[in-house]
């Protein structure tokens, strides 16, 4: 009698559609996946350890590079955690600007997800359209802070600078046009029978599994669990805005696709609301122990110069304690757990990256399906390896 064996293939770390350096060892029976084992660590840079040797301000540049497609959201989560440790609250204007940036970043991140996910499934054209719109958003980021990918725009206690002239009108114009662009992407995909065949009933994650595996973001909302930190634990004045938290029904790739598409529309809506109601006033909280003094004073006043020197060289000393704070990043719950021993550097900075936790559900979703589904599922998890490996 003929003997049959499973075929073990090594997908990644150098593979066109593992979105970076993810390695998945697949055991195949024909084209059916018997077992999938993700291996991570190829992009490990020791961010958490590096942070222990940097002052709190310096860590901002590190967190930019976690999920490098959503630098603003990483900034957001980190500064909120430190502000919680210091027990300060930034002015309304800063809160609103932070929300504008975070929501623009969510759109940018989802656009890349849509382009690459569609490309993985064989539709190559949406990629170019989504990058066109994403570029417009990165231009806006460039306007406010000079950087496109690694903004370092948020500061503990406020922002690096106020919005430049012309930003509000430009952003409003872009966000008003944006829903029509989303309609364009949907024309290519949503009702396309091949797209539906490839994503419906593929990579199903039940609500129970999603909760047990700690999934968050569009992953858990696709499985019909309306868990959104912006809604459940509002931070930075999210309670001021009207938006819908979209959910899916079956937890398959198609539901996650629709959740993210709707999230883009909702984010555009939030940005418009925030731009319209943008309060006037300071962008920085008054906290001289933490914040740099204004630049004009540094140039003219010796006390301010000394103060500036002290903050830049030594940072500030927060009280002893532990905090956890999280935000709804584009990929899910991004949390920072900070242990402070009273010195100017964090004793321990633990990051809860959404991609890493969401990736844990990969074997559950792909075992028993086909090799082509593995690609679709990896795409629909929306991982960024910089964040998975840290």
């Amino acid at each position, binding site marked *: 009698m003929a003997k049959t064996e499973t075929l073990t293939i090594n997908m990644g770390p150098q593979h066109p559609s593992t979105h970076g350096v993810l390695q998945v060892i697949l055991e195949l029976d024909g084209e059916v996946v018997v077992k999938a084992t993700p291996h991570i660590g190829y992009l490990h840079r020791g961010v958490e350890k590096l942070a222990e040797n940097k002052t709190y301000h310096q860590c901002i540049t590190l967190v930019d590079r976690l999920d490098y497609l959503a630098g603003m959201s990483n900034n957001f989560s980190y500064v909120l955690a430190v502000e919680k440790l210091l027990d300060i609250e930034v002015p309304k204007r800063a809160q609103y600007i932070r929300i504008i940036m975070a929501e623009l970043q969510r759109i940018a991140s989802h656009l890349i997800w849509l382009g690459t996910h569609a490309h993985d*499934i064989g*539709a190559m*054209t949406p990629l170019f359209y989504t990058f066109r719109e994403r570029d417009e958003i990165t231009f806006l980021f460039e306007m406010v802070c000079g950087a496109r990918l690694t903004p370092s725009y948020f500061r503990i206690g406020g922002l690096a600078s106020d919005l430049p002239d012309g930003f509000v009108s430009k952003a409003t114009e872009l966000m008003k046009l944006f829903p029509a662009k989303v309609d364009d992407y949907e024309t290519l995909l949503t009702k396309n029978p091949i797209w539906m*065949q490839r994503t419906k009933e593929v990579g199903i994650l039940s609500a129970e599994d999603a909760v047990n595996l700690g999934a968050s973001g569009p992953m858990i909302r696709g499985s019909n669990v309306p868990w959104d930190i912006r809604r459940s634990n509002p931070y930075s004045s999210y309670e001021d805005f009207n938006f819908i938290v979209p959910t899916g029904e079956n937890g398959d790739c198609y539901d996650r696709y629709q959740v993210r598409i709707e999230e883009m529309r909702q984010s555009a809506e939030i940005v418009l609301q925030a731009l319209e109601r943008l309060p006037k006033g300071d962008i920085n909280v008054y906290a001289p122990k933490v914040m740099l003094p204004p630049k004009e004073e540094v140039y003219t006043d010796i006390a301010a110069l000394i103060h500036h020197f002290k903050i830049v060289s030594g940072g500030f000393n927060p009280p002893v304690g532990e905090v956890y704070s999280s935000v709804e990043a584009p990929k899910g719950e991004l949390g920072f757990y900070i242990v402070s021993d009273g010195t100017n550097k964090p004793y321990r900075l633990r990051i809860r990256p959404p991609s890493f936790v969401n990736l844990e559900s990969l074997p559950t979703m792909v075992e028993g399906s086909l090799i082509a589904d593995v690609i679709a599922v990896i795409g629909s998890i929306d991982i960024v390896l910089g964040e998975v490996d840290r």
Partner: protein
Amino acid sequence: MLEVVITIGIMLVKMVIVLSVVMLMVAYVTLMERRVLGRMQVRHGPNRVGWQGLLQPIADGTKLFFKEELTVDKANKGLYHLAPVIYMGCALAIYAVIPFGNEIEVLGRVIPLHIADINIGILYVFALSSLGVYGLVLAGWSSNNKYSMLGGLRAAAQMISYELPLGLSIIGVLMLTGSLSMVDIVNAQEHVWFVFLQPFGFLLYLICAFAEVGRTPFDLVECDNEIVAGYQTEYSSMKFAIFYLGEYMHIIAVSAIAVTLFWGGWRGPFLPPVVWFIGKVLAFVFFFIWVRATYPRFRYDQLMRFGWKVLLPLTLLNIVVTALVTLII
């Protein structure tokens, strides 16, 4: 004696012309694909080498020619080298029976514009097109690479599934013509093109043709997002280029067959027949590119199900309906 020499001479000249025109078309279809895709995807495509990128195919060819020839350790050397040859050879041989124009008169001699008019033309085309699959399967199998093997297996399964409906989809045309010869088929379309008599046959042929040449949405054989590059993963330099050229030759070949069987071949008003023929073929190539820019790809099992459960019954139905209608009329 002289007569034989002249006849053979004419044949050779025609072969050389067809070969060079096909090669040239293949080269420029690759450019066309990249430029048209670029247009559809809000980007430019290659436009730097020569005017509007017209020298790009030559630059690409030269580059590939000078690339290092790699052969995988433990590859089955003979088959590994043979596979691209089979693939391209089969694609090229199809052109032998395609009539690309009417007759022309040179020095009082009537020269028909096709290399050979064999009375089993269509069978010959499909036989060669099926043989071409061996190129892919052998390439996948001999490369000693798991991804290649998956690609080769997919190729085998896909071609077998689509060979049948492809063959059956044109039976309607054969019933109307009563001949397998390509020249006869074109002549039978003097008054009305078969696409109007056999619209379903044409649609089915078109779908199968996409699967046969492995283009989006049926490009599972070499789908780079899943199995790296499928059967051609381990090929480099000119061997890779030959696969690449073979693929485009196949695309042009199936387009030419579609034109011959359904769109009246070289027939058309005002312009010379050869221009009509090439124009129609290019329109089909454009359609192939357009579809590539629009659709996602099928999954392996969906592809098989579609072939056996949808296309095959439909082609059979088409034959039955055609037969009934012909009988009644």
